[in-house]
C-alpha cells in the first residue's frame, strides 16, 4: 500500500502543481517567438482580381442555327462567355521573380481571374517590371516598371486595377 505523504509536503506539492500549470499556460501563451522572415527580408504581395477579355469574339448565327433555337431566344449574335487566361510576369532587377497563368473563375469560365502570392524578397532598392496579358492571343497588353527602396519588413503590394490604368505598386 502506498505510504501517505506528510501533509506539509502534500500542500507544497499541490502548490507546485498549480504553479506548473500556471507556468505552462503563461509561457505558451506568448512563447517561444516565431520567426516570420529573415532579418534583412522585405515582403512582396502580388494580389489582384481581374476579368480578362472574352476568349472568343461574337459571331453571327446562320439561318439554320437560328431555326434550331426557340423563337424567343433567337439572338443573331452568339457571344461565348468564356474569358481568356490571365498571364502575369513579374521581374525583379531584370530577373524573373514570379509568373503565373490564371484561368478565369466560375463554372462557365466567365469570372475574374484571381491571384494572391506572398513572396519574401531582400530589402533594399529594386527595379520591378510587371507585365500582364489578358487577351485570347496571349500578347502582353499591360506593363509597368518601377524602382522602389524597401526597408526590412516593409511590404510592397502589387495590384492590378483596370480603372487605374493597370499595375499599382503600393508601399506604406
Amino acid at each position: 500500500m502506498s505510504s501517505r505523504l506528510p501533509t506539509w509536503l502534500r500542500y507544497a506539492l499541490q502548490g507546485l502543481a498549480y504553479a506548473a500549470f500556471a507556468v505552462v499556460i503563461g509561457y505558451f501563451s506568448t512563447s517561444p517567438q516565431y520567426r516570420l522572415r529573415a532579418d534583412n527580408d522585405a515582403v512582396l504581395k502580388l494580389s489582384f482580381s481581374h476579368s480578362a477579355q472574352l476568349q472568343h469574339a461574337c459571331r453571327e448565327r446562320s439561318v439554320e442555327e437560328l431555326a434550331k433555337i426557340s423563337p424567343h431566344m433567337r439572338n443573331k449574335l452568339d457571344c461565348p462567355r468564356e474569358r481568356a487566361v490571365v498571364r502575369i510576369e513579374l521581374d525583379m532587377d531584370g530577373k524573373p521573380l514570379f509568373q503565373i497563368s490564371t484561368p478565369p473563375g466560375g463554372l462557365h469560365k466567365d469570372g475574374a481571374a484571381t491571384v494572391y502570392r506572398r513572396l519574401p524578397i531582400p530589402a533594399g532598392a529594386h527595379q520591378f517590371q510587371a507585365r500582364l496579358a489578358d487577351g485570347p492571343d496571349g500578347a502582353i497588353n499591360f506593363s509597368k516598371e518601377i524602382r522602389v527602396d524597401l526597408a526590412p519588413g516593409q511590404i510592397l503590394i502589387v495590384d492590378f486595377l483596370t480603372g487605374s490604368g493597370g499595375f499599382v505598386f503600393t508601399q506604406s
Partner: protein
Amino acid sequence: MAALSQSLRVVDETLTSAFDRVFAPAHNPWRHLGALAFLCLVAAVASGIVAYALYDTSVSGAYESGLRLQNDSLLLGRLLRGLHRYSADAFMFLSLLHLAREAARGHFRGVRWFSWLTGIPLLCMLWISGVTGLWLLWDARAIFSVTATAEWLQALPLGSDLLARNFLTAEALNDRFFSLIIFIHIGMSLLLLAGVWVHVQRVSQPRMWPPRALMTGCLVALALLALMWPVTSLGPADAGRVPAQISLDWFYLFVHPLVDAFGAPMVWLLAAALTLVLGALPMLRVPRKAARAVAQVDLANCNGCSRCVADCPFGAVAMVARTDQSHHPSQASVNSDLCASCGICVGSCPSSTPFRHIVDIVSGIEMPDEPIATLRRTLQQKLGALTGREKVVLLSCRQAADLQSLADASTAVMALECAGMLPPSFLEYATRLGAVGAVIAGCREGDCEYRLGDQWVRERILGAREPRLRAAAPRDRIAVVWSGRDIAQVHDTILILRNHLSTAAGPAGNAALKEQQHE
C-alpha cells in the same frame, strides 16, 4: 494497437496515482480534466462579457481597448484581460488533456461514442472562438494571424481566393470587420456552451464542476498569473510591415507555423485526417469476449422502485407505464443503445438480495451474462471450496485488475463486471457463509470505468444510499480498496483485514473504509 492502448493506460495510471498522492483522490485534477476545462470556459465567458462592455468595435478603437485594460492603474483591467486570455488558453490545454486521457482509457467506444463524437466539433469551435478572440486586439499578432488564416482558407476550393486582400492595406478594412469577428467570437463561445450540454447528454449525473478546492486552486492560479504575468498587446496592427519575429499564443496559433512548414493544403489534409481518425475511433471493434448482453428487466420481480434509474451512470434505464397486470404503477425499461452492461442497476435492485428463500433467485433487473442466482451460487461454491482458516472473499472489479492470482486456500476471488454491481447484502451474506471478512476491490476512487460504481458502493455500505448495508451487518469485517491495477495494494488490504480480525478484541474497524470517510 493493443500495445499502444496498454502503454497509454499505464501512463494514465501512473499519472493518476502520482496526483492521488499529492491531492486527495476526490480532488485529483487529473481526474477532473473535463470539469476543469468547463470551469475555464465559464471563466472565459464571464470575463469576456465584462471585457465586451469595455471593447470598442472599430478599427481605430479596438487596439486602444486592449491598451486601456492593460494599463488600468487599479490592475482590474489587467486581471480581467489576463483571466479572459489565460482561462481561454487553459480551456484549450485542459480540453486536449481531457481528450488524451479519455482516448487512453478507451472511452470512445461502446455507449460513450456519443460523448466522444460530440466532443470533436467542440475542439473546432474552441479553436475558432480562441483565434477570433486574438484578432479582436488588432495588434501586430492579430494582423499576422488574420492574414495567415485568410491565406490558409484560400487553399480551399471555396471561391475564397481573395480573402487575404481584405487585410492588404489599412484602408481595406472597416469597422464592420470587428462587428463580424466579435459576432463569430461570441457566437462560437455560446455554441460551445450549448455543445458541452449536448456532449454530456448521454451521461447521468455528469461532473460539470470540479470539487470546490480544485476550482478555487485553478481560478487563483489563473488570477495570479494574470496579475504577475500580464497579457499585453504587441504593437498596433500595421498592414505595411511584417515583424521579423512575433510572439504567438501557441494554444491557438500553432496552425500558422504548421502552414508555413508544410503548406496550406497539407495542413488541411492533416486536419481532415485527424478529424476522420478521431471520428472513426468509436467504430473500432470491441473484442467479442468483452461484448456483453445488456440489462434485462424481469417484471415479476420489478416493483417499480426506480432505484436502477437513479443509479444507472448512462441514463439507460427509465421508468415507464406498467405492461403487466401488477398493481405497481410503473416498471423499469432498459434502452439497449445506452446500456453499458456494467450491472450497476443489478446492485441497486432491492430484489437482488441473496437472502431470499428461493433456489434460483431472480432480480428485478438482471445481467443475462451474470444473473444474480449465478453470483449467489458462485459465492457459495467458492467459499465452500476454501480449506484454510480465516476465510476471506475478495469481490473484485474486472475493469480494475485480474486478481485471481490472490486466490488461495483461505481467499476466494470472485470477479464482477463492476464493483457497483454487487448488492451490499452479498457482503453480509458472505460472512453468514463463514467468511471472516469480505474485501471489495475496484478502480481507483473517482475513476470507475462505469463512472459511478465506486460512489454507489461507498454510499451503500455507509448506509447513505439504497440498497443500504444493514445497520446490524458486521462492517468491521468489510474492507473496500480502490486500488486500480495495484494488486499489491489489494494484497496488503487483505492482510491488514486478517490481522485486525485475528488480533483485535473488539470490533477491528475497517481500515480502508475509515480512510475514505476521513477523506
